[in-house]
C-alpha cells in the first residue's frame, strides 16, 4: 500500500536526513511513499502567529492537492506540519463557516477524507511486527530517551492516537527495533522551538534541561520525530558545551534512523553523519558495550 508524503520545508533542508531515512526505511519495509505534487508551506510559525486565515488556507491547500492526487492517508513527518494540518482540518469540521471562507480563498472544495498521520502513526499502521521481522542489527546497547516535544501527540482530543500527557507510542516503536527505552520526565517539555533563530539563549537553556534529564535517567541516545526538536537538541549541544563545560554530549536520532539502524542500514545511508553530535553505532555503542 502506498501512503501520501507531505515533506514540509525542514525535510528538504535542516532535516534532510529525516527525509532520507524515512524514504529508505519504508522502501525497505515494502511501502511506497508518494510525495505530494506541488506541496507548499503548512502554515506553521510565522503564518499562524500572524494571520489565522492564511495559516488555515496554507495548510488546507495541501489537503486539496492530496484529494486531487487521490491520497487517503498522508504522512507529515514534521510535528509542526502534522499539527497544523490536523488542527486546520479539525477547525473547518467544527466551523462550517470557516470552511466556506477557506474554500472561497482557495477557489477549491476541501476534501473531508484525507487523513493526515505522523511518522509514529505510520509505523503503527504498517504494524510493529514488520519492524521486528526486518531486524538485522542488535540495538540492545541503546538506551533511548524518546522525546515527543510539544506538538507530536497534540492537540488533545484532535489527536487520538496517543496519550497527550503520557505518550508511549515512540517507546513501543523503539523497543520493536530492539532498543531499550528509559522512563524520564521531559518527554513533552518545550525545546524552545522556533526561538532557535531569535533567542538562542532561551533555546539553549530549555534544550539543555531536556538533555540533562535524559542523561540523568540513564539514556545514551535521544530519539525524536520532529525536525525542530532535532535541530534544537542536536545543533545546540556545542553551544551548551561552550557555556557549560561539564555538559555531556548525547546523540539525537530520528525514530526513522533508529529503525533504519536496526534494519542493518549504515550511518551514512541514513544520513546520521550529518548530525552535529557524532553517532556511529559500532563505535559509539558497540564499543562501549565491550567496555
Amino acid at each position, binding site marked *: 500500500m502506498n501512503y501520501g508524503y507531505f515533506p514540509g520545508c525542514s525535510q528538504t533542508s535542516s532535516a534532510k536526513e529525516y527525509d532520507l531515512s524515512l524514504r529508505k526505511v519504508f522502501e525497505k519495509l515494502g511501502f511506497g511513499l508518494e510525495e505530494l505534487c506541488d506541496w507548499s508551506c503548512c502554515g506553521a510559525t510565522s503564518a499562524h502567529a500572524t494571520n489565522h486565515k492564511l495559516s488555515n488556507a496554507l495548510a488546507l491547500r495541501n489537503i486539496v492537492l492530496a484529494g486531487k492526487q487521490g491520497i487517503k492517508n498522508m504522512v507529515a513527518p514534521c510535528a509542526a506540519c502534522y499539527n497544523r494540518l490536523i488542527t486546520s482540518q479539525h477547525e473547518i469540521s467544527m466551523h462550517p463557516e470557516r470552511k466556506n471562507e477557506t474554500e472561497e480563498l482557495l477557489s477549491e472544495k476541501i476534501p473531508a477524507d484525507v487523513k493526515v498521520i505522523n511518522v509514529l502513526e505510520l509505523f503503527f499502521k504498517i504494524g510493529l511486527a514488520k519492524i521486528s521481522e526486518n531486524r538485522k542489527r542488535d540495538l540492545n546497547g541503546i538506551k533511548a530517551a524518546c522525546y515527543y516535544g510539544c506538538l507530536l501527540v497534540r492537540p488533545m482530543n484532535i489527536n487520538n492516537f496517543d*496519550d*497527550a500527557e*503520557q505518550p508511549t507510542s515512540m517507546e513501543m516503536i523503539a523497543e520493536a527495533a530492539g532498543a531499550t527505552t528509559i522512563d524520564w*520526565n521531559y518527554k513533552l517539555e518545550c525545546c524552545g522551538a522556533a526561538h532557535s533563530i531569535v533567542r538562542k539563549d532561551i533555546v539553549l537553556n530549555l534544550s539543555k534541561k531536556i538533555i540533562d534529564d535524559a542523561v*540523568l535517567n540513564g539514556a545514551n541516545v535521544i530519539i525524536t520525530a520532529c525536525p525542530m526538536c532535532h535541530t534544537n537538541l542536536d545543533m545546540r549541544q556545542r553551544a551548551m558545551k561552550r557555556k557549560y563545560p561539564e555538559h555531556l554530549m548525547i546523540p539525537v536520532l530520528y525514530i526513522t534512523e533508529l529503525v533504519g539502524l536496526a534494519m542493518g542500514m549504515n550511518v551514512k545511508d541514513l544520513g546520521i553523519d550529518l548530525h552535529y553530535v557524532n553517532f556511529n553505532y559500532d563505535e559509539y555503542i558497540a564499543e562501549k558495550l565491550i567496555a
Partner: protein
Amino acid sequence: MKIGVFICHCGENISRTVDCPKVAEVCRNFPGVEYSTNYKYMCSDPGQKLIKDAVLENKLDAIVVGSCSPHMHERTFRNAAISAGINPFLVEIANLREQCSWVHDDVEEATQKAIELVRMALEKVKRDKPLTKIKVNVTKRILVIGGGIAGIQAALDVANAGYEVILVEKEPSIGGHMSQLSETFPTLDCSQCILTPRMVEVYQHPKIKLFTYSEVVKVEGFIGNFKATIKKKARHIIDDRCSGCGLCMENCPIKKKAYNSFEENLAFRPAIYTPFPQAVPNIPVIDETICTHYKNGKCGMCVKVCDREAIDFDQEDTMFVADIGAIIVATGFKLYNIEKKSSGSIYKGYGEYGYGKYRDVIDGLQFERIASASGPTSGEIKRPSDGKVPKKIVFIQCVGSRDESKGISYCSKICCMYTAKHAMLYKHKVHDGEAYVFYMDIRAGGKMYEEFVRRAIEEDNVKYIRGRVSRIYEEKGKYIVKGEDTIAGMPVVVDADMVVLASAMIPHDNAPLLARTIGIPYDKYGFYNEAHPKLRPVESTTSGVFLAGACQSPRDIPDTVSMASAAASKAIILFSSDQLEREPVVAKVNEDICQGCFYCKKVCPFGAIEVKDIKDINGIVFKEVAYINQGVCKGCGTCTATCLSKSIELAGFNNEEIFAQIAAL
C-alpha cells in the same frame, strides 16, 4: 355547557404583544362561551376572586384561562375552580405567555395566535370529564440507603418522629467519609468526636433497624407502598454471638494481602476485619477473596480464638423484602482518581501528574487519614513512600473539578475549604514546613468560611499561588511541581516532598445502577436529579423518593446535614396522613379490546404496567391483558401513544379531547 374565558395580562408579560381585551372580546362569541373577560393578574387574589364570582354569577360549568404555562399556575386556577364548586379537571389553560407573547413580536399575529390557542382549549374543555383524586394507603416505614452522615441524620430524624427506619449501608460499618476525616472546617473540631455518638445512637435506637454490609437490589411499588428487596451479604460472623473483642482480627495470619479502604489504601488489613476500631456495629467481616479458609479449607485461626463460636464460614448471602412507604437516598460520593481511565470514561485522568504513579502524590482523603490521630501514622504527617516528614507540601485545588478537558465542568464546592484546613493542619504539626496552595479561585461561601481561609493565609502563613499546575515529576526524591503564578505572570517551580490533590467529588460507580433500581433520574455524571433545583431540592422526581447529601451534588457536612433533615421532614409530612391523594391523570386499559401485546409494558418508564389474567366463568384464563397500577402511573402517556389497538386511554388527555383540540386549529 356554559364556559368562562379568563384572559390574563400577566402584568405586561402577555399584554405587551397580545391584545388581551381583544382576545377576550373575540372569544366571547365562540360557541359555548357564556362569559369572557380579561384582567391584569389573574393569579392574584382579586383575579381568583374574579373567576370565582363569575362562575357563581353565570353558573359556569367549566373555565379556560389564557395565562402562563400550566406548570406555573394550573394548580392555582384549579383551586379557584374548586372553591367555586367546579371540578378542577374542567379547567384548561391556554398558554399565552411562554408559547405566545414571549416568543413573538408582532402584536396582530400574536393576538390571532392567542385567540387560536384559547379556541383549542375551549374544544378540549367541552370534552373534559370530571375526575376525582385517587387515594392510596401509606406504609409508615422508611428505607434510608447509605449510612454516612446524611443517612445517619435522616434516619435519626425520622426515627425520633416515631416512625420505623430501615437503614442500609453497603460497607461493614456506618459512618461514611465523615468518619475518615481528621478535623472539620471551619472550627477544626474532631470529626470522629462529633460523629461517633450519632453512630451509636443509630445502633441503639429502638425504631432503627440497621443493615450494614447490605445492599438494596430491587425496589417495586409506588409512594406509600414500596417493596424493597435487600441483600444482606454474608459476614461469616453470627451477629448476636460476636462481642466485638477483636481477638480474631489480632490473630488472623493474613496481614498484608489487602489494603484497608478506610485508610484509603495507606495501610493493610487482615482477612477478618472491621474497617476501623470505632466501627458500628463492632462486628467484623471475613474477606473471602483473601481468607485462607476459602482457598484450601485450612487455617481457622479465628475459629480457634473466638470463645463465643461466632465464626460461621458457611454463612450465605440472604435476601429479605421490606414494606416501606418512602425512601431516602443518601449514597454519597467518591473522589476523582487521577489514574488513567478507559477510553470510554468521561473522566480522563491526569497524565501530567503521572497517572498516580508517584506514591507521595496523594488525594485529600488520604491526607485526612495521614493527619488523623487514628490514622496509619497516628496523626504525624509522613510521606507514604519512605515515612519521612515532608518539609514542603504542595496542595493543588480543582483536580478534576472545573476542568472540562478532564471530564468535569462543575465545582466540587468543598475543596477550597478542606485544602485550607489541610494546609493549616500541616503547619500546626510541622512548624518549619512550607505549604503552597495552587488555586483557580477561592470559593469560601459559608458562615466563618472566608475567615477560615484568611486565617490559613495570614496566621499560618500558607502560600497561596493563583494558577494551575501543568506537570509533576519526580527528580532525586523530590516532586517537581511546575505551575504558573497568574498574578505575577510567572512560571513557578516548587520542589516538594509531597503533593496533595484536591480531587473532585464524583458519584459512586454504581450510582446509575442504583438509580435505575429505584427508578430515579440522574445527570450525566451520575448525580441524582432533584425534582426542582430551587423549590424541591430534596425530592427526586419519583414521588416518595427523597435525596440527601452528596449523591445529589457535591456538598459539605453542614449542607449535607441540613439536606438530610429536610428529606427526613419531607418523609414525616408524607407519613402524617394515613392515606395519600394522587392526581387522577393516569392511564387505563380497555380490557375488552386490549390484544395483550404488552408493548406498553416495555415502554413504560415507571414500571406501572403489569400482566392481568382475564378468566371465564369457570375460572380458566382465556386472555392476558395489560393492567396499569394507578399508584405508580405518572400519566406520561407513553403507553397511550404506543398502544397498537388504541385500548389505553389517559384520563384528562384522551384521543377525543386531543383530536378536538387539533381540529379546532
